[in-house]
């Protein structure tokens, strides 16, 4: 009888195991024990440890220049979804480390990655600028025009509501305006790569290449 339904049995067993693994990894994303194991394995790998040390030193050096952030915490990326142009990342810092919802998340070079959307005891989920729900008030560096940076399009993001007669140029930097409740003023987001002018609309369509290449990040700076 069981042999007859063997494929169904294997399917259900494998699904059940997978669900258990997902729950274990997602709900208790970063377990204390997992951290200890991770640290132990990292200690053995000296090269990795040295590289991490250099990266963290770089972050500390750059942090001195960022005055808009009152409080900062350095976290590590635990998981990325999806693998390319991620819309959601999970970091290993949570409520216990002082992380709160809507805190800004930056790359080690202090470029905008996104903001914290949910916090657990020892981990937090971050909505990145690639998420279609991400709408950020930004300012064009050279002209000081204010627009809305929209996610959901890859590999470029769009800035909308920049007036048709604006003097924006390709290569101009896009920064956070500070008008949003979530993002402090002056954080670099990306650079303008293309400008589309259409006579039937009042606004320009601006393509922005984000500075933070999220797929290969390991450490992030969380601040408010």
């Amino acid at each position, binding site marked *: 009888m069981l042999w007859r339904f063997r494929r169904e049995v294997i399917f259900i067993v494998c699904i059940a195991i997978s669900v*258990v*693994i*997902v729950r274990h990894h997602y709900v208790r994303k970063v377990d204390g024990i997992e951290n200890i194991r991770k640290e132990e394995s990292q200690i053995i790998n000296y090269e990795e440890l040295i590289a991490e040390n250099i990266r963290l030193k770089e972050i500390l050096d750059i942090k001195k220049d960022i005055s808009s952030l009152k409080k900062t915490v350095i976290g590590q990326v635990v998981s*990325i979804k999806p693998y390319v142009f991620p819309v959601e990342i999970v970091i290993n810092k949570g409520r216990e480390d002082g992380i709160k919802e809507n805190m800004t998340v930056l790359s080690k070079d202090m470029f905008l990655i996104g903001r914290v959307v949910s916090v657990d005891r020892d981990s937090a989920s971050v909505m990145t600028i690639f998420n279609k729900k991400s709408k950020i008030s930004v300012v064009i560096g050279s002209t000081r025009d204010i627009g809305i940076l929209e996610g959901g*399009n890859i590999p470029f993001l769009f800035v909308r509501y920049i007036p048709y007669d604006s003097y924006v140029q390709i290569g101009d930097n896009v920064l956070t305006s500070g008008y949003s409740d979530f993002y402090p003023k002056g954080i670099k987001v990306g650079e303008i790569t293309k400008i589309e002018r259409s006579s039937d609309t009042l606004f320009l369509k601006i393509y922005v290449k984000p500075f933070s290449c999220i797929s290969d990040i390991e450490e992030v700076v969380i601040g408010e």
Partner: protein
Amino acid sequence: MNRKFILLGEQFLVITGLQIVALNYLKSAVVPSFFLIWLLILVWEENIEISLFMAFLTGIIYDVSSKGIYGITSIIFLIIVYINCFLKVQDSTGRIAGIFIFSIMYFLMTLFKYPEGFLWNTRTIIRYSLLFAFYNSVAGFFIDTGMRRLRSKWKMRRQYLLI
């Protein structure tokens, strides 16, 4: 029986190597899923129980190497393999079409999050799912041809041993 397992082991190692190299070194917006292609071919060749196990195993390997949430890809692979248990696709054209369709399905499943829905815009999803499916179909063509050649080599080796 042993011969079959050796053949599968060889294939598994090659596909795992290809997938890890692609994930780490391919500088492309979308990376083909060699695991998915292999699993589809495996299940179409009626290795149903093995392909279900492999769906679980390769899913975990994929999540570990792509920094995903462990187990998510396993669930997606298992669902796709289970659906394909009931399909018999033998000819190359049908297989490439199958890989194309199920690649789109896989891509959509990876981008879905309950209760928020899809995490990219519709146009972007369509564009990149088609690109992903195209890459997979091209890779699928080569993998299918390679596997057929490998099998014929094994046949020759067996005949030689019998002589």
